[in-house]
């Protein structure tokens, strides 16, 4: 709860900093300081939240447990890393730098709500709080037509999916008479309530849209490609993880006992997401667009955590969210250094900037799920959660197949960097600080891969 307040206050401070702070650099510094403070608040929350029972706030609107605050802490850490790595690029997007950071703080506020909500109203508010800033961030490069298109597309489709979410919530309320996810009375009812099922499907569709699962993924490539790269990195990682924790929470806590009725639908969505994401990513010519499709593919893996109603799923999502976020932020940081986003733009990067090429390789390996990197452990956890369910073997095998395909397009970048001659143009020189931060990010990726327990111990 303190984190929510702190995130809001940080956002408001940054908003006013937009008037007072003229120098773009200072805005970035201020954002880093505030995010550090936010991280501090989160760590304090981890320490002060009792491990046993969740704490209820405000008539049970929020039920925040140790797990939720730990998730928040890790993702706040990811955000901090993101701002440290990419902050300079954010400052180049437009003239409202402080406002962009304010919006990022609001997204964090939405994340904190989504990791601990206990009421459908809070779910709705949280989803909207992470969505609206994203619409704006997508369109922040106003002189670029593609950015405006991305923003408008995202906004229209997002508004539509919010409408579906609301309809689902309405039907669920009609079926159960409650907004509290822990009080849904169909948990006890013997007969299957069609009204509730229709509600669950609608909510599932809306949340699938927010996490860009197929067939509701249509917006993702255009938005991630059109949005300023600096913001794509955030939208594809932390904001997506926030939507996922909401998805997971709802389907485990509220609909867990009904899992028989929705597992099949969600498995089909998962399979479709994996298929569409991986196969389409193969055909992309631009690395940025490839990463957009790969984020769809990764969402397919994260959906495994939602499908499997067990304790490993909770651990899986935390590991997956962090490993995927860190690696993606890292690869976007590398991408932002380059002028040309096509595969050819990476040609010969290893000769020109060996450090950059090396860290990019580690990030890509992690995304592909090669052992010793975070991505491997993440995939291991979510897939073993599904294995434990028993009847999802076919899906797991399909996922492994798709993971093998994903190796192809991730390795294309590595091959371009190491084995193809060329002289890539850089946007800005790679400074010592950049190198240090990238290697630190790299170390985190490896740390997750080798000692995943570190990130699970709460």
């Amino acid at each position, binding site marked *: 709860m303190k984190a929510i307040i702190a995130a809001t206050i940080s956002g*408001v401070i940054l908003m006013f900093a937009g008037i007072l702070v003229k120098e773009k650099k200072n805005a970035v510094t201020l954002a880093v300081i505030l995010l550090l403070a936010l991280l501090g608040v989160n760590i304090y929350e981890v320490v002060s939240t009792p491990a046993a029972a969740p704490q209820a706030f405000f008539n049970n609107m929020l039920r925040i447990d140790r797990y939720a605050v730990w998730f928040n802490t890790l993702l706040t850490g990811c955000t901090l890393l993101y701002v440290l790595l990419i902050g300079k690029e954010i400052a180049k997007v437009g003239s409202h730098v402080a406002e962009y950071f304010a919006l990022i703080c609001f997204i964090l506020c939405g994340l904190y709500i989504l990791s601990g909500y206990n009421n459908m109203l809070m779910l709705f508010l949280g989803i909207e709080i992470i969505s609206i*800033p994203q619409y704006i961030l997508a369109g922040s490069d106003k002189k670029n037509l593609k950015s405006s298109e991305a923003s408008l597309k995202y906004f229209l489709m997002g508004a539509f999916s919010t409408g579906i979410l609301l309809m689902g919530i309405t039907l669920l309320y009609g079926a159960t008479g409650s907004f509290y996810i822990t009080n849904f009375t169909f948990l006890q009812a013997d007969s299957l309530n069609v009204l509730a099922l229709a509600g669950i499907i609608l909510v599932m569709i809306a949340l699938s849209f927010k996490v860009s699962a197929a067939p509701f993924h249509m917006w993702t490539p255009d938005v991630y490609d059109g949005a300023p790269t600096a913001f794509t990195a955030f939208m594809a990682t932390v904001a997506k993880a926030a939507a996922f924790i909401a998805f997971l929470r709802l389907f485990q806590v509220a609909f867990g006992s009904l899992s028989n009725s929705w597992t099949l639908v969600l498995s089909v969505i998962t399979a479709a997401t994996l298929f569409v994401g991986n196969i389409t990513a193969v055909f992309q010519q631009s690395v940025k667009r490839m990463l957009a499709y790969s984020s769809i593919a990764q969402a397919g893996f994260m959906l495994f955590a939602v499908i499997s109603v067990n304790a490993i799923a909770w651990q899986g999502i935390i590991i997956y969210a962090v490993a995927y976020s860190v690696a993606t932020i890292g690869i976007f940081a590398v991408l932002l250094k380059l002028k040309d986003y096509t595969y050819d733009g990476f040609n010969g990067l290893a000769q020109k900037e060996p450090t950059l090429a090396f860290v990019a390789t580690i990030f890509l390996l992690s995304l592909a799920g090669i052992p010793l990197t975070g991505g491997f452990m993440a995939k291991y956890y979510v897939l073993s959660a599904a294995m434990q369910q028993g009847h999802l073997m076919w899906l797991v095998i399909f996922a492994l197949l798709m993971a093998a395909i994903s190796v192809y397009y991730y390795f294309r970048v590595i091959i371009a960097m190491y084995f193809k001659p060329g002289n890539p143009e850089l946007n800005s020189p790679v400074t010592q600080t950049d190198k240090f931060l990238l290697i630190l990010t790299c170390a985190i990726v490896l740390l997750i891969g080798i000692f995943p327990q570190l990130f699970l111990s709460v």
Partner: protein
Amino acid sequence: MYEVLFWFLTIMAIGCALGVILSRNPVNSVLFLIATFFAISGHYLLLNAQFLAVVNIIVYAGAIMVLFLFVMMLMNLNADVEPQKSRLAQLAGMIAGGVLFLVILAALRTASLSVLDKQSNDIGLIKNLGKVLFTQYVLPFEISSVLFLSAIIGAVVISRKEEVHSTVADGSVNTSDIK
């Protein structure tokens, strides 16, 4: 009397909602939508939620739809510029929509209305609404301010002109992006 009003408002709401999507002229669509809001406000009145009814009219019909109309009038849209979807897409949409309609219809047919709480009839009165809003629902009420704040910031970020000197600096980046 109550029944008559209910059915009148329901038919008006559904009819006008259909009018929104069926009319060719966007301005007519907007006007139908306004009429739909009126019908819904009427329903609120029947449920004794006067505050909600009037706020619905003030906010939606009085402000948001005026802005909508505003945009429609300035864009001068008409039926000719409306993009035409292919037959196949239309058919697919029709089937998908029809199936959803059937499912929801089936859901509503079997639904028991036991959860309807008939006792708290005065919840829509402004005093009770205010009390509920500031006690039971105080957190969503306050948190929604974050939502609005981010929307306001968004409006400022999107609508304010960028300073001139940054145009030159960013120009080169944009061209490479488009390429």
